[in-house]
C-alpha cells in the first residue's frame, strides 16, 4: 500500500463521511414531501425554491441549539451515545458497491461486515436510553434493543439463501452473479420480503416503530437529546434507511446491471422505489404492539427464513440452480406457513354476543 493508495482511500472515506449528512438531508426532505403527498397537503414549500432548503435550515438551526445535559443523566453514556449510533452507519457506506469502480474498499467478506456493524449502533441506543435518566427513554431504549436484536436473525437468514446461490460473501460477486442469470429478488421473493421487513424493524421504521413511536414513549431513547446530538440520531436513522434500500438493490435487484443506461443510473433507479416504499409505509400503517412485534419475528419470520434457506440449499446441492420450481416452492412454503402461523399470533378470543333485551319505550311517554 504505497502512500498514494492510502491517500486515495482516505480521500474516498472523507467523501463518504461528508456525503452521509447531505444524503440524510435529502432523504428527510423527500420523506416530508411524500408524507405530505399522501395526506393531500404540500409538505415543505416556503423555505427556498419548492422547499428544497428546508432541511438545510433545520440542520443549521439544530447546530446552533443549546447543548444541555439533564441533571439526572450519566454524562459519559449521554455524550457518547450519539456517536456510537451514527458512526457504524458511515462505516457500512464504505463497503457498498454503487458501481464496479465506484466502491471504496473491495472487502471479500463485505456481506458479513455489512450486517455486523448495525449491531454496534444498538449498543449506542441502550446507552442513550439508560444515560438520559428519564423513564420514557429507558423504556424506549429497552424496547428498541429487544426489537433490533431479535430482528437481526431473520435479516441474516434471508440473505444467507442468496449467499448460498451466489456462492460468495462479497457484495460485488453477488452482483456479478446476478449479471447474466435472473435477479435474486425474482428467484427468492420470500427472502426479499423478509429482508425488507426485518430491515424496517431493525431501524424501528413505521410498522415496527414501537420503540420510538411518539404516542407512547415520545421518541424513545432520543427524548432527552437536543440540538446537534438529536440531529445525529436522525442522521443515523436516515443513513440506515439508505443502506437498507441500497443493500436491497445490490443483493436482490442486481445492483448496477441494466440494459442501456450506465451502472449508477440503474442503481438509483432501483434504490428510489424501495425508499419511497419505506416512506409510503410511514403514512399508511399503524404500529404493532411490542409482544405482537416479537411474536411476528420469532414465530413467523425466523422459521420462514430458515425454510427459505433450506429450499435454496437443496436446489443448490442438486445442481438445479435458480429455476422456476424453486420460486414456486418457496412461495408455496411461505403461504402455507403464513396461513397457519400468523393467524395464531394475531388470533383473538372472539366471544359470542350477549342477548340484550330491547327496551320498550313506556306507552305513557
Amino acid at each position, binding site marked *: 500500500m504505497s502512500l498514494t493508495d492510502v491517500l486515495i482511500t482516505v480521500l474516498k472515506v472523507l467523501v463518504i463521511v461528508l456525503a452521509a449528512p447531505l444524503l440524510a438531508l435529502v432523504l428527510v426532505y423527500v420523506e416530508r414531501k411524500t408524507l405530505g403527498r399522501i395526506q393531500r397537503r404540500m409538505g415543505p414549500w416556503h423555505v427556498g425554491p419548492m422547499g428544497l432548503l428546508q432541511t438545510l435550515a433545520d440542520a443549521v438551526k439544530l447546530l446552533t441549539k443549546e447543548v444541555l445535559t439533564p441533571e439526572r443523566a450519566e454524562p459519559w453514556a449521554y455524550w457518547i451515545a450519539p456517536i456510537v449510533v451514527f458512526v457504524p452507519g458511515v462505516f457500512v457506506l464504505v463497503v457498498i458497491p454503487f458501481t464496479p469502480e465506484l466502491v471504496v474498499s473491495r472487502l471479500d467478506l463485505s456481506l458479513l461486515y455489512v450486517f455486523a456493524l448495525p449491531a454496534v449502533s444498538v449498543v449506542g441506543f441502550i446507552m442513550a436510553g439508560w444515560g438520559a435518566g428519564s423513564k420514557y427513554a429507558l423504556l424506549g431504549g429497552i424496547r428498541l434493543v429487544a426489537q433490533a436484536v431479535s430482528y437481526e436473525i431473520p435479516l441474516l437468514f434471508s440473505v444467507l439463501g442468496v449467499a448460498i446461490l451466489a456462492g460468495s460473501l462479497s457484495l460485488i460477486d453477488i452482483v456479478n452473479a446476478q449479471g447474466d442469470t435472473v435477479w435474486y429478488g425474482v428467484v427468492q421473493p420470500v427472502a426479499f420480503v423478509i429482508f425488507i421487513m426485518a430491515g424496517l424493524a431493525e431501524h424501528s421504521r413505521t410498522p415496527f416503530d414501537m420503540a420510538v413511536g411518539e404516542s407512547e414513549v415520545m421518541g424513545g431513547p432520543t427524548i432527552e437529546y437536543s440540538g446537534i446530538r438529536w440531529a445525529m440520531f436522525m442522521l443515523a436513522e436516515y443513513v440506515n434507511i439508505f443502506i437498507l434500500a441500497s443493500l436491497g438493490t445490490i443483493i436482490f435487484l442486481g445492483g448496477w446491471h441494466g440494459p442501456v443506461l450506465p451502472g449508477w443510473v440503474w442503481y438509483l433507479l432501483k434504490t428510489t422505489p424501495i425508499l419511497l416504499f419505506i416512506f409510503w409505509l410511514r403514512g399508511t400503517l399503524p404500529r404493532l404492539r411490542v409482544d405482537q412485534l416479537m411474536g411476528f419475528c420469532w414465530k413467523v419470520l425466523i422459521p420462514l427464513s430458515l425454510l427459505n434457506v433450506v429450499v435454496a440449499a437443496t436446489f443448490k446441492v442438486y445442481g438445479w440452480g435458480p429455476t422456476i420450481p424453486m420460486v414456486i416452492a418457496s412461495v408455496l412454503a411461505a403461504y402455507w406457513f403464513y396461513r397457519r402461523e400468523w393467524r395464531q399470533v394475531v388470533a383473538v378470543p372472539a366471544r359470542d354476543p350477549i*342477548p*340484550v*333485551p*330491547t*327496551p*320498550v319505550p*313506556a*306507552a*305513557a311517554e
Partner: protein
Amino acid sequence: MAQEVAGSRPAPTKESIADWARATLEPMGGTVVVDRQFVEVELPAEKLRAAAHAISESDDPEFRLLYDISGLHWPDDGELEAVYHFFGGWHAEGITLRVRVPEDRPLIPTISEDWPTANWHEREAMDLFLFEFEGHPYPEPLLLEKDMQGALLKHYPQREAPDMVERFKQRGDVPFEIWKAVRPEIENG
C-alpha cells in the same frame, strides 16, 4: 339486568317507581314527592347509605346508573344540599335523592360501595362544596388544591373585572407604539 331476561320488558313508569319508593324508602324517613320531573325522595343524611343500597339492589324498577351528585348551597338558611340522580340501565326512568345538611357540619355517609362511580362525584363535591363524606376510600382533593377548596360556595371570592379606566391610565404614560422590534425589558435587563 339478569341474563334470562328475554325479549322486551315494559319500561317502568313514574307511578310504578313512586309506589316502589313509598314502599321501600318511606320507612327510612324519606318523603316522596311525585309532581317534579322525576320521583324525588327527601332523606335525612344518616339514612342515605341504606337508601342507596336499596336502590342498587332493587330489580323491578332497576337502576344501574348514578348520573351525578350535584351540590347546592343555600346561604340564607345556612344549608348545603346534595342531589343524587339515579337512572335505569336499559330504560330511561329515574329517581332523585335529596339530602340537606347544615353548612357548618356537612357530614354525609358515602355510597361508593354500591355505586363505584360515586367515588369521584363525592370527591368533586368535597372540593367544590366542602362536603365531608364519611368512609370515602380516597378523600384526596380532585380538582382544586387544598387552599382553594369550596369554590362553588356563594361567598367564595371572585376576581373583579379589571378596571379598564384605571388600566388605560396606567398605560397612558408609556408612549403607545406599534410592535417594537427590541423588547424594552431585555434591553436594560
